[in-house]
């Protein structure tokens, strides 16, 4: 048990918590405590047991053994509703909101203190009061799907707070947020902690953890490693605790000069509309040559999604041209061309078939090629062999290759997609937020995969809202803002501040 830095008795104690799924020990006798009014970060690789631990606290899983006390009392939550009664609220990584219903309806859903009968105006008014109370502005009459991701998260936080949560658990809350939204969230979390609530903050992002947390607990492979006050921790010491090795994100920063060849992507004066019918791209020009990584820096929602979808042929622009030059490409592009790899933004939507097995998902780009089938009859021996290779190369942790791929953790799904696509992307590889939500180890591996491709002569277009990633990986950077390219820079001339200004839409920064 770590010594408590405060003189106050702990608000939550966890002792000897163990949880197994079939053969897998997800939590192995974990003990830790949480002080009242602290932001406590829970840090660990994918599969370290962070989500399992918090799911036990929130009543979603039941532990096999171990004791949890809250405010001095032993608790046994059997359902999420029990946990809510016990003052534990969880903001899930996948928001538990109904997209087609309004903010008010989502706030009052399943809440026995909601009025039995109400008018819409009545409900919106009550919601406005609650929203006001917690200073988290959002329009109560808006439908969830009309809100930004940050606003949706606010709805979730308000909902847990309104039900009297004393312990607030946030499962990777920043994975989907922009930089500005993350800063806002941190302000909110700090205010809540100062108000006496205890907050568990799950994250992979070491810098963020150091910024927001009072104390940091590290888990590795289901085991408790250590609890450290944030002021005593460094990025390197945390990374080492998490991985048990000296893997660091800095390891791949020296990428060496690019040996560029022929042009593989040419985008000329491209215009397009977003799904809502608003202008998303306003005259984008872009080229990628073989053997180089071109990074697109920019805050999410500035046209990157539309650009990526047009390049791989799942969306059409309104004017301009896109030409991908690869072994089997056409103009305009069609989805799934030979020689073109695509690591999409939304893996479950555009890369994986959730109910299909890991094996099948590993070969979806190649199963009709000559080595995996003959005259359209699948050769299962070869397919299993190929899938095994993808799984090994990507170090995908799979318990059962025939089980639905949806059962893999998000990190392992991403490794699978990245490896599969890199394998087929001989000429051109489009990587959109390839490491979003991945832990340090997996991030390094996915980045190494992209670098290997670059060295092998593939042209890579990297789209990411993580500026550090774009800076570390790219030979050239273009900055996108509001559907336009505001600035371009070569690796030799990177200026972090200037790029940051351009990402924020400060046009004049391009001239300095």
């Amino acid at each position, binding site marked *: 048990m770590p010594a408590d830095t405060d003189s106050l008795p702990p608000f939550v104690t966890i002792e000897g918590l163990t949880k197994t799924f079939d053969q897998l020990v997800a939590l192995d006798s974990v003990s830790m405590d949480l002080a009242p009014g602290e932001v406590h970060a829970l840090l660990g690789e994918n599969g370290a047991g962070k989500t399992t631990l918090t799911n036990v606290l929130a009543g979603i899983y039941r532990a096999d053994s171990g004791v949890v006390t809250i405010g001095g009392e032993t608790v046994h939550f059997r359902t*999420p509703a029990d946990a809510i009664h016990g003052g534990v609220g969880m903001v899930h990584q996948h928001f538990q909101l109904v997209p*087609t*219903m309004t903010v008010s309806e989502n706030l*009052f859903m399943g809440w026995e203190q909601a009025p039995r009968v109400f008018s819409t105006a009545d409900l919106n008014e009550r919601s406005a009061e609650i929203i006001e109370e917690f200073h988290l502005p959002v329009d109560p009459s808006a439908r969830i799907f009309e809100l930004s991701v940050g606003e949706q998260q606010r709805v979730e936080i308000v909902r847990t707070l309104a039900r009297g949560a004393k312990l607030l658990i946030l499962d990777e809350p920043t994975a989907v947020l922009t930089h500005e939204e993350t800063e806002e969230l941190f302000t909110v979390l700090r205010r809540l902690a100062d108000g006496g609530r205890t907050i568990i903050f799950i994250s992979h992002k070491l810098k963020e953890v150091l910024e927001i947390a009072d104390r940091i607990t590290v888990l590795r492979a289901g085991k408790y490693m250590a609890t450290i006050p944030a002021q005593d921790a460094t990025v390197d010491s945390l990374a080492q605790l998490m991985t048990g090795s000296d893997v660091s994100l800095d390891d791949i920063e020296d990428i060496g000069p690019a040996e560029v060849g022929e042009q593989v992507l040419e985008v000329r004066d491209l215009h397009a509309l977003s799904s809502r019918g608003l202008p998303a791209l306003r005259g984008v020009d872009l080229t990628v040559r073989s053997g180089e990584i071109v990074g697109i820096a920019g805050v999410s929602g500035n046209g990157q999604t539309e650009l990526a979808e047009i390049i791989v042929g799942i969306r059409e622009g309104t004017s301009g041209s896109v030409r991908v030059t690869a072994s089997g490409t056409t103009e305009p592009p069609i989805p799934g061309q030979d020689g073109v790899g695509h690591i999409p933004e939304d893996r479950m939507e555009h890369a994986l078939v959730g109910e299909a097995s890991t094996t099948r998902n590993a070969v979806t780009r190649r199963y009709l090629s000559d080595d995996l089938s003959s005259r359209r009859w699948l050769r299962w021996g070869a397919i299993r062999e190929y899938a095994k290779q993808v799984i090994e190369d990507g170090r995908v942790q799979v318990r059962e290759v025939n089980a639905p791929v949806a059962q893999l953790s998000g990190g392992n799904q991403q490794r699978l997609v990245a490896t599969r696509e890199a394998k087929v992307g001989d000429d051109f590889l489009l990587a959109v937020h390839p490491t979003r939500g991945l832990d340090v180890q997996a991030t390094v591996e996915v980045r190494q995969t992209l670098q290997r491709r670059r060295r092998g002569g593939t042209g890579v277009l990297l789209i990411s809202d993580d500026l550090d990633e774009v800076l570390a990986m790219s030979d050239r950077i273009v900055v996108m803002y509001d559907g336009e390219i505001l600035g371009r820079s070569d690796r030799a001339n990177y200026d972090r501040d200037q790029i940051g200004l351009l990402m924020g839409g400060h046009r004049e920064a391009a001239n300095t």
Partner: protein
Amino acid sequence: MNTFTNIISTAIDAGAVIVYAGMGELLLERTGVLNLGLEGIIAIAAASAVIAAQWATTPFQALAIAILVGAAMGVLFMLVTVVFRANQVLSGLALFLVGVGMAGHLGGSVTGNPSPVTFEAVPIPLLSEIPHIGPMFFEHDPLVYFGYVALPIIVWFVLNRTRHGVNLRAIGEEPSAGDATGVSVMGIRAFYTVLGGALAGVGGATLSLAFTPGWTPNVVAGRGWIALAVVIFAMWRPWRLVVGATLFGALISVSFIAQDRGWDIPGQVLNMLPYLITLALIVLAVVRNRGTRATVAPAALAVPFFREER
């Protein structure tokens, strides 16, 4: 009564079965459960009502039996789909076959005889004396009044103005979100499966105790399937369901009257008309609403709910 008032009046009577069965199905589908077995429930309830009518002294007793039988079919479907989480499409088709088969068997002894007790039209004082309007809208049996006026008001109110309605709609869209916030997904789904069965039972009774009193094996004639189609046409909204049911009733009514008066249209075409037009309306409704998010089917429709699934 002239031809037009006659068509409208008959249309409303003919649509009652769609209103009841459709309203139960609408509620059930809003919770995320699809019951394709309506036709079977209506059939077995219609036959049971006529059998009960042999000893019943009032039509309400026969109606009660029809409701019980419908609810029992609902319980069966609930056990299979909500508790054991079987595939809802296949289970629904099985329920349809079982219901129609059992109805034919049970109804054997009463086939072709008029029902001894029936629901009679109760003209509403004053209103029914308005020329034309009165006979069209205010001379119907009690089941019609309840189904066209009270039922949609209740359903609309529950869906849009109550806490329970919010929970109900939530689990039809995102059951895991409902579960995480304390809604009993299984409990609500179970309740509406049984209620949907009971309402389909009422639908069966409107056929065999009011519209065409008595039992013949083909009395249901696909109306359970039409009710399912009308729910889609209605975009899962109660008032649009009433409109759809009346529209379908009007098609049946036109074909009845055309045959009655010897209009020069082939009988097969007239019999086909309601089904063809329903099909056309569905296609129209789906095409017109394509891409608009607020009017599509409940997102979790026909998807069983498992808590520990990621």
